[in-house]
């Protein structure tokens, strides 16, 4: 037996290819959407992996430092370092902002990390693709390649200039912004920097306070002013555990002694995926549903029309003894072929389009496989209407009146 569906497709290939390409673009968009979601999750995981931390110590009762703001005194890390099971502990600050370079500015996550710290200190860039780590306490930066900055570039973060001395790869925030690492002190300053007028006004208020500005005790005023203009807060303390230490155990100890909220790697991942990108995920989910419905409607309509055009032939086929099953299979196979063409076009489109998107689009094979089966299921379902119509065709119609 020959394939009726195949012959019909060859005969009307223009129609099939044309519809298949249209459907394929829709499927391409769908795959990219799924890729955007995967990219967000992967960005989140990259953020956690690259931080080099096993535990995140943050302000009590916050979901910091990524999902909520958190602030801690910068001397706490020493106490934590002394706790059993802790190998390394380091302060870190995160601040998402526009970083200027010449005429342009780039949205980046500015990370303040310990300068000149030994390799493997959490919070510092784990590996460089070019250049070196910053060693000086001030005005050097390590930038992610995605910022477009080059070694030796001068960049501006708030009021200070930094020289790019090193480059990293795939160091991104949970929203996909590339990271720029600067020394912790500079970052603390950048985070809490007040403008000159504000400093001047605050200084005037302090000076006007007789309790502080006491005659005969001029040292008090100076000390207070110094503490006001400097900032000794950080957003989190990143902890690297000793090999074999139990993260939950250490987390409980830190909480018991310091009353600080501590998250393990697994908890942090839950926060990022479950809270930070959950709304985006639902948004993407909605789009996927709409695209699926639109695709189904297109396939159903096209297959229905193609079958409508063949009513007479179907009556003749039935008259000369074709089984209903054969006719249903013909229509279903055409719908599936349309889906296969669409999927191939969509997959190719998505693969070529993914790198062009500003944020990371991660196309994973499981999504493609799931997408393929979803497309096939949708096409099979969409052909049901046409099949029902074809099965109702009376072979007597072929004989006519």
């Amino acid at each position: 037996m020959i394939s009726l569906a195949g012959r019909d497709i060859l005969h009307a290939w223009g129609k099939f290819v044309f519809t298949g390409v249209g459907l394929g673009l829709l499927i391409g968009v769908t795959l990219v959407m799924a890729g955007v979601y995967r990219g967000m999750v992967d960005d989140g995981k990259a953020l956690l992996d690259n931080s080099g931390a096993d535990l995140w110590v943050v302000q009590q009762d916050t979901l910091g430092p990524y999902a909520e703001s958190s602030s801690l005194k910068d001397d706490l890390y020493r106490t934590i370092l002394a706790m059993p099971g802790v190998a390394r502990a380091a302060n870190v600050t995160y601040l998402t902002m526009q970083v200027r370079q010449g005429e342009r500015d780039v949205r980046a996550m500015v990370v303040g990390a310990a300068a000149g710290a030994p390799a493997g200190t959490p919070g510092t860039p784990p590996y460089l693709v070019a250049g070196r780590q910053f060693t000086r306490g001030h005005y050097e930066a390590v930038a992610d390649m995605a910022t477009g900055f080059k070694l030796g570039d001068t960049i501006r973060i708030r009021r200070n200039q930094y020289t790019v001395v090193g480059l990293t790869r795939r160091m991104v925030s949970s929203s996909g912004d590339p990271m720029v690492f600067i020394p912790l002190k500079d970052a603390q300053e950048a985070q809490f920097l007040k403008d000159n007028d504000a400093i001047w006004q605050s200084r005037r208020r302090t000076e006007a306070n007789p309790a502080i500005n006491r005659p005969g005790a001029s040292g008090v005023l100076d000390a207070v002013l110094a503490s006001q203009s400097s900032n000794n807060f950080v957003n989190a303390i990143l902890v690297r555990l000793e090999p074999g230490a139990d993260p939950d155990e250490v987390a409980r100890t830190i909480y018991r002694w310091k009353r600080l909220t501590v998250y393990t790697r697994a908890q942090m991942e839950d926060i990022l995926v479950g809270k930070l990108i959950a709304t985006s995920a639902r948004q993407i989910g909605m789009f996927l549903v709409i695209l699926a419905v639109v695709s189904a409607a297109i396939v159903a309509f096209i297959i229905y029309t193609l079958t409508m055009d063949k009513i007479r032939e179907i009556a003749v086929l039935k008259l000369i003894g074709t089984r209903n099953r054969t006719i249903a299979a013909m229509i279903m196979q055409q719908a599936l072929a349309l889906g296969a063409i669409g999927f191939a076009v969509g997959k190719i489109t998505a693969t070529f389009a993914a790198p062009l998107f500003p944020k990371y689009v991660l196309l994973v094979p499981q999504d493609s496989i799931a997408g393929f089966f979803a497309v096939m299921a949708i096409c099979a379902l969409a052909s049901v209407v046409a099949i029902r119509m074809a099965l109702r065709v009376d072979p007597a119609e072929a004989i006519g009146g």
Partner: protein
Amino acid sequence: MATKGIRIEGLRKRYGSGDTAVDALKGVDMHVEPGEVVGLIGPSGSGKSTLLKSLGAVIDPTAGRMTLGDEVIYEQGWKVPDLRALRRDRIGFVFQAPYLIPFLDVTDNVALPPMLAGLPNTEARKRAQDLLTALDVRHRAQAMPSQLSGGEQQRVAIARGLVNRPPVILADEPTAPLDSQRAMAVIRILNDMARKYETAIIVVTHDEKIIPTFKRIYHIRDGVTHEEAGEGRGFE
């Protein structure tokens, strides 16, 4: 009584019921012997198509009896269970319009019924090509139906009707779209095939040109048939 060919006795067909019921066939008697081509003529609304559909097993008669060869295929409300297989294997159809399958080439259009009956493709195509040769359209075997002339299409359609060597062929106005020369050619082919394959052929027609060629004619009027001898010209 003939043991081949087709025979119907007292065939009735009522469409609908109650006040709106139409008695399209009111007791039709008819028999066609193997190798014979008979004409079926009658005015519009007389029941020709209804009779053809009953013979073609696509509508159920209301009463009467139909036998194909020595097998009863319909009797007083009882019918053979697999009408689809009956149509596929035992009845050939030729229509006024050729109704070829547009997405199959000429060979596969003709090879389709044997393929449906389960013959391997190569064998089905071989059979189709033999028949196309006999019908003088072998040179168009690879063409698509849309590339054929009306007469060629009609010959391909006849080949499709004959290819499973059915004992009965039902032809509905097969010469209507053709000029008289082509019409005569089609009738000649049907007569040749009837003789060659021992087929019983019923030709429904209005066509004055071909009526004189039948040796036997059934006139149908108001759902009742009357048999009469035709002129039988040209096919002795």
